[in-house]
């Protein structure tokens, strides 16, 4: 359905442009982008991983914020398509998990146990520096075409632009600081998920959904809501005590 896809692509880039000219939340932005990748590239899950200043990979956002998927990202700190992609700066595409079982043993086993058959990783690049990777998971072995890969690479470039365009960064060239800020936002969200899960007696996955829909409904930045929740700030009382919010 090429027409539909073209339209989806246009919509995606219009939405991205709208976001980038506005005051936006980087993790929420990456989360949306990952969700768009799933539709546009016809895969089953997508995530964006970033490299910290020590060269370690961390999950920044995923199409579906569920613990099992995040675990699959984390498992790649030693061996996996994202690490390979980041080291070489080149895409890892159409990697069948059975065929690559020896290359990434722990990752391949866990990904297959989660129902995935193939993975792809595309680099997030800024000129010659690789800052992370877009990770795609497919439940079957349909291959990504060259067109898919081009679209995927355009979306990863957009992710890079989003990270560079975070607010309050005076030194636009200061990539390491921007990456660290994005990663720290992610840590805050994880802390907030924990606080909310414990308070509301829900799972951490549900806690993320709740945080995000609350931010949406109140036109707030996801990271700001997460920070208030994590610190038990009074502005988060409604969310922490469940008055007036529904668990999605």
């Amino acid at each position, binding site marked *: 359905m090429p027409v539909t896809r073209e339209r989806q692509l246009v919509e995606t880039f219009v939405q991205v442009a709208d976001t980038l000219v506005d005051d936006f939340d980087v993790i929420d932005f990456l989360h949306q982008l990952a969700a768009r990748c799933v539709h546009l590239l016809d895969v089953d899950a997508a995530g964006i991983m970033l490299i910290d*200043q020590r060269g370690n990979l961390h999950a920044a956002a995923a199409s579906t914020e569920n613990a099992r998927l995040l675990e699959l990202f984390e498992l790649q700190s030693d061996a996996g398509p994202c690490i390979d992609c980041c080291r070489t700066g080149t895409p890892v595409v159409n990697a069948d998990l059975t065929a690559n079982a020896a290359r990434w043993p722990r990752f391949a086993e866990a990904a297959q146990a989660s129902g995935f058959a193939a993975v792809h990783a595309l680099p997030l690049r800024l000129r010659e520096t690789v800052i992370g990777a877009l990770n795609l998971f497919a439940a079957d072995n349909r291959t990504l075409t060259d067109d898919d890969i081009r679209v995927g690479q355009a979306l990863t470039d957009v992710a890079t632009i989003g990270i560079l365009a975070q607010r309050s960064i005076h030194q636009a060239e200061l990539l390491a*600081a921007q990456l660290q800020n994005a990663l720290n936002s992610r840590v805050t969200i994880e802390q907030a998920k924990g*606080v909310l899960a*414990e308070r509301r007696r829900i799972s951490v996955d549900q806690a993320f959904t709740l945080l995000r829909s609350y931010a949406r409904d109140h036109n707030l930045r996801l990271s700001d809501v997460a920070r208030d929740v994590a610190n038990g700030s009074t502005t988060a009382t409604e969310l922490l005590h469940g008055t007036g919010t529904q668990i999605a």
Partner: protein
Amino acid sequence: MAMILVLLDRTTSAPDGSGAGFSMAACAAASTVLGVDGLCAVVGTGAGGTVLAFGTQTVSAALEDLQFTLGEGPSLEAVATGIPVLVADVAVTARRWPAFTGPALELGVNAVFAFPLRIGAIDLGTLTAYRATAGPLDPGQVADALALADAVTLTVLHRQSREGTGPGADPDGQPGPGWAAQAAYRAEVHQATGMVSVQLGVGLAEALARLRAFAFGRDLLLADVAADVVARRLRFDEEDQ
């Protein structure tokens, strides 16, 4: 840089637990690697005032005092925004910090680099470096400074929990700052930090320290303890009573 972090780790793992703080050797070595003339960490960002955690030179301390007095400057901006504030040339910052620029130049400070000390929503203060000559940090130095800020954050957290506070803070059972461990911090560790903070009714910093102490005291991996908390196989309010 790795060696400096080890020095830092060793210093504060020393059993005396004195407020003497960070070793001068570690500070001096870090200053050399970062190509700066002074370095200091200020802990405590609220109205409770600031505590000088360490400093290589008196200028560093004067610079912090100046900002605290004036209520403006790169370190305070780093605290407010949570983002590193890197000033390669103080002489051109008069519009940004009208009161700060002149006195800073008089101190002989021509470049300032301020890094927030934080883990997610845990805000501890700033690490600020200064140089007598103007000019940016190179990308490698920025990466090193970020790594140093992480290490200092964990060290301070560790020291606070040891000096501190809650029941269950066993002085002999505390782990070292374990700077290397942060690289291995997983999403579950941060989620568990949030959960434990609710269970114990303490802040995130204390909750993280308690998680680490629990893991260390039982010779478990922090990641495994965190996984048990998130899976609700382990609760801290029951465990410690």
